């Protein structure tokens, strides 16, 4: 395009950017830079009405806040178990669905639908299963010990419940990614390996899994970032209980900000959460970008 024309159109291009830019700055960049970050340096409580500059005071306090530290630990535990659970299940299902089997579309939908239902609804489905369905079935087949399990009563069982539900919801999405990855493996590579006598489990471990390493990497980072953003399921399933044992970082911030109105302190925690997720996402983006170049 000629320079003259470009100069004429330049104003139009900038105008096109403005609406999205305005919404984006108003909703995301502005609140972060002008809201969350400055607020984190204040002792600010919306109910008490005070707003005093305390520098890094909130951040210092964070390190001795056992509830916050525990929420970090719980988020890590949730992340590790959810990542292992979803990835194994998703790979297994994707592997089966990659064959030319009967009823593929319907089966795929079965595994995927939990992923598109909101976390709150998913949690409610499982509340009914844990407190209604499982005890009732266990009793009718005489498994008293299973019937008497209190799924939300102890910190350990509540953690297990949150993990089960998170895995159930997360599997479908990773399955789709694995399926997409499996389909990129060239058919002739697979045929050649079969001719060379490499079949079954050996074929999966020696041929398919190594060729899927980039998908595995993507899936790991998607799961890590997802785990740090976990909110809906623990909120609706256990509300972070019993005694705050299943609070994720996001839920901890929510309770601080909207339960006890600690705007300043909650903001300091938000900055920490932002830093953690930013690091994870930057690593993820740089890896996936590198992969794009290779492809």
């Amino acid at each position: 395009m000629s320079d003259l024309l470009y100069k004429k159109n330049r104003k139009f291009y900038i105008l096109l950017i403005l609406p999205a830019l305005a919404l984006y700055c108003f909703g995301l960049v502005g609140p972060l830079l002008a809201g969350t970050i400055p607020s984190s340096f204040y002792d600010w409580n919306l109910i008490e009405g005070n707003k005093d500059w305390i520098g890094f005071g909130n951040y210092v306090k964070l390190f001795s806040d056992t509830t916050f530290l525990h929420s970090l630990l719980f988020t890590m535990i949730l992340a590790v178990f959810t990542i292992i659970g979803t990835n194994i299940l998703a790979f297994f299902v994707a592997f089966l669905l990659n064959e030319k089997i009967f009823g593929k579309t319907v089966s795929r939908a079965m595994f995927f639908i939990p992923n598109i239902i909101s976390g709150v609804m998913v949690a409610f489905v499982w509340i009914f299963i844990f407190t209604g369905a499982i005890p009732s079935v266990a009793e009718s087949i005489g498994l008293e010990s299973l019937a008497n399990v209190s799924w939300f009563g102890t910190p350990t069982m509540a953690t297990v419940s949150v993990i089960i539900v998170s895995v159930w919801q997360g599997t479908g999405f990773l399955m789709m990614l694995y399926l997409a990855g499996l389909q990129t493996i060239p058919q002739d590579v697979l045929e050649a390996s079969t001719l060379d006598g490499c079949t079954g489990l050996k074929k999966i471990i020696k041929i398919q899994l190594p060729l899927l390493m980039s998908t595995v990497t993507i899936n790991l980072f998607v799961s890590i970032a997802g785990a740090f953003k976990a909110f809906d399921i623990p909120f609706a399933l256990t509300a972070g209980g019993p005694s705050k044992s299943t609070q994720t970082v996001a839920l901890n911030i929510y309770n601080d900000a909207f339960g006890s109105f600690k705007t300043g302190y909650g903001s300091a925690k938000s900055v920490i959460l932002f830093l953690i997720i930013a690091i994870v996402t930057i690593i993820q983006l740089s890896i996936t970008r590198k992969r794009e170049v290779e492809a």
Partner: protein
Amino acid sequence: MKASKEKTKYGVLGAVVLLLGIIFMLPVFLIISNAFKPNKDILTNFIALPTSLYLDNFTEAMEIMNFWTVFRNTVLVTVSTVVIATLFSFFCAYGISHLKGKISTFFYMLFVLGQIIPFHTVMIAISVLATNAHLNNTLIGLVIFNSGFFTAFGVMTFVGFLKGIPRELEEAATLDGCGIWRTMMQVVFPLLVPTTVTVGVLFFLWSWNDFLLPSILNGDESLRTITVNLYMFKSSTSAQWNLFIAGLTLSMLPIVVIYILAQRYITSGLTSGAIK
């Protein structure tokens, strides 16, 4: 001989996988089947299929939940968000990909960086901002904030796909006397329909399932959206399984129907979103 043997193998394997899928979805099926039973039947034997088509749970739940108002709110918010966020993302990406030099890179990176800001890190600031800007307790507030969050992903995705459209095409259109606006809307945009559908479907899911933003912004009962409303409904009916389950079924229904209708786009949208 070999072909028929293979057919049997895939048939059997398919049946096994289907069975696994049904087991996986069993929690949802149990919720749906129990929604058709009177409360006493749910408590005594919940595995049994409903013996008759008992619809009282639904009618009662719909009334208590104020279902149609909530459904209308959710549709209004979601459709507006999808249209605004998708269109503005496309405009912005078009501008970015046509600008030359550092300014283009600057805007592009600005939007890419937005993807590393999770909503939870700005929710406190948003609730303060919404109160000051009088956007709390409004539906338009949800549309504005969600559109702002979604554009980060939308712009990045559209820029990626705009790169694949040959510039010669636009130049030819300009030479033929096609104005700049018409070139964008009638020459380039139709080529990006698959991308637009993908982006739109994702925005739809995000907005429809949103819980945190509406629960922070809107306390007003008449402004609730579907997920928040279900959450509130649960606390008011906790002792009545039948109503709760019927409400849950009703709340899940729209998104499942949409999935069945738009399965192809949802699948491709979600996967390309993660990989791109």
